[in-house]
């Protein structure tokens, strides 16, 4: 190799080397629709449910994994993540190894693992993850089962994962305030969210259990600095139906939570709860606000109705708080074979303010049985959809397009729960 070649190779390598994988803009501007998997199948059996299908996808994350000691919680509070800053998302590892891993949204590369704590005498199973506003701190909730006392004493243990130096160093700390009471199940289908200032953590819990399945029906808010907790439960139940809270999110002022209230019917011997309008006593899903300024109480008195399912919004598949006090809705509409999924901004009166994303692809590839919106601190929205034909499709909404996450999805589970 000549001197010129050596210099050229060195200069090219140095120039290219300033591109850091974790700072690349996340995701290509891919088209919005998930790929149709093959010949179109007859979807007629879905039609009756399509008018108001809102299924809670519940996937049991089994398998034992155990973990580590508890430590004092550090103080909380974070600077907001600036727009365009490198972002990460949390994903459950492939079964049977269910550790949570943090990946780069640019490349999908594993940045750091969150090893399930190994606590002698306990079995911990990861349930849900929430990202803090700094984008470098994640809260992980585990179902902790006392191996000597079995299920009756299972609890929710929540850990904080922080990582630095591009993931080369991380720490897991048990946060103040837990274990949390009740069955302790943060249950699949529930959710967890960090307040915009990073000082509070809200999550759903379960007081009810039917046919071996638990359904999220209460809301906890814990102050991460002091460990003081508040809880809201009961008051919204209806006879003959199972009340669930599939998702919660914080308003931008940190004073309220927005949650979706669903009354559904669990499928026997399954982990699915079907929102079935054909059932007697059916009550359509609602979007409600909960003022967290109090020390807890009942859900009916503590919360107010923001929006109900209606002809305009026939299936509210998910709802989160918008940045200006409005709601961000994921709405399914139309017949099963020509369904449209829209993500739109809606004001307090239910008036549509704008459409963030629209896809008609689901009419041809199958209605999503589950739709999840997750806002980040910069108010971008991660959209997860799932149906049995296509599995999971995940991406974030950017100027009307869905930019796919570079994530591998296991065949089971809801692997991405935070970003």
């Amino acid at each position: 190799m000549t001197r010129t070649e050596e210099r050229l190779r060195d200069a090219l390598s140095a120039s290219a080397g300033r591109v850091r994988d974790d700072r690349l803009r996340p995701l290509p501007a891919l088209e919005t629709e998930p790929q149709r998997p093959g010949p179109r199948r007859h979807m007629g059996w879905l039609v009756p449910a399509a008018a108001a299908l809102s299924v809670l996808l519940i996937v049991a994350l089994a398998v034992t994994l155990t973990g580590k000691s508890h430590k004092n919680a550090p103080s909380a509070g974070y600077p907001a993540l600036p727009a365009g800053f490198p972002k990460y998302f949390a994903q459950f590892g492939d079964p049977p190894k269910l550790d949570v891993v943090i990946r780069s949204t640019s490349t999908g590369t594993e940045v750091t693992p969150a090893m399930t704590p190994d606590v002698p005498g306990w079995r911990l199973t990861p349930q849900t993850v929430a990202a803090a506003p700094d984008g470098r701190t994640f809260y992980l909730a585990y179902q902790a089962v006392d191996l000597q006392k079995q299920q009756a004493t299972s609890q929710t243990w929540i850990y904080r994962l922080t990582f630095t130096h591009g993931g080369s160093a991380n720490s897991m700390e048990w946060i103040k305030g837990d274990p949390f009471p009740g069955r302790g199940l943060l249950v699949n289908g529930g959710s967890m969210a960090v307040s915009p200032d990073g000082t509070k953590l809200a999550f759903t819990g379960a007081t009810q259990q039917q046919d071996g399945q638990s359904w999220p029906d209460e809301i906890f808010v814990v102050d991460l600095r002091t460990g003081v907790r508040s809880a809201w439960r009961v008051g919204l139940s209806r006879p003959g139906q199972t009340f669930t809270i599939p998702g919660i999110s914080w308003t931008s002022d940190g004073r309220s939570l927005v949650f979706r209230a669903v009354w559904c019917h669990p499928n026997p011997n399954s982990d699915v709860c079907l929102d079935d309008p054909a059932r007697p006593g059916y009550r359509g899903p609602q979007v409600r606000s909960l003022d967290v300024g109090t020390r807890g109480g009942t859900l009916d008195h503590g919360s107010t109705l923001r929006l109900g399912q209606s002809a305009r919004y026939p299936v509210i598949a998910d709802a989160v708080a918008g940045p200006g006090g409005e709601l961000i809705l994921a709405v399914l509409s139309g017949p099963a074979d020509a369904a449209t999924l829209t993500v739109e901004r809606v004001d307090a009166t239910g008036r549509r303010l704008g459409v963030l994303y629209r896809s008609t692809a689901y009419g041809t590839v199958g209605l999503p049985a589950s739709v999840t919106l997750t806002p980040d601190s910069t108010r971008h929205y991660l959209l997860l959809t799932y149906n049995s034909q296509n599995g999971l499709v995940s991406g974030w909404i950017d100027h009307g397009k869905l930019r796919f996450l570079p994530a591998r999805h296991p065949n089971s589970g809801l692997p991405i729960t935070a970003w």
Partner: protein
Amino acid sequence: MGHTSVPEPAIAQPGAIAALFRDHHAELVRLALLMVGDLPTAEDVVQDVFASLHRRSRAHEVDAPLPYVRAAVLNGCRSVLRRRAIGRRVGMTHRAGISDETTMLASAESEVILSEDRRQVLAALARLPRRRREVLVLRYYLGLSGAEIAAVLGISAGTVKSTAARALAALARDLGEPS
């Protein structure tokens, strides 16, 4: 100056595209960066390529070979450089209306301090004709063989060899070295 003709293969399913993106995104951005000189444009070029791949995946099957994607990225870079040239000709501004060479150097300095030696080499590289620059980048950055470069650029292996030799000779002259 037209696009290099690249045979269009059938395109991968979205899963394969996602895998391609995951495995080669950074490499492709670096390749584009070396051609267009600034990172935001390089990322745009690569994202456009993946968006195009994904759109076409609906109608095709089979796989999306990496050479094809590299070629598409280079085509995207050429389009960018052409637009810049047109912009200068008609008096429009494009990123302050500076030349490719200046852009490459300025952006290079923005994140790392390149040694003076490297700056000289990159400046000389930027002064080469587009085809010669592409051949050198593919060979000395990506480390592609003559046959692989030929596949990417849609030219013969012999042309690759002669182009590389001329490019190196020109680079050496510019740098004041014996070729």
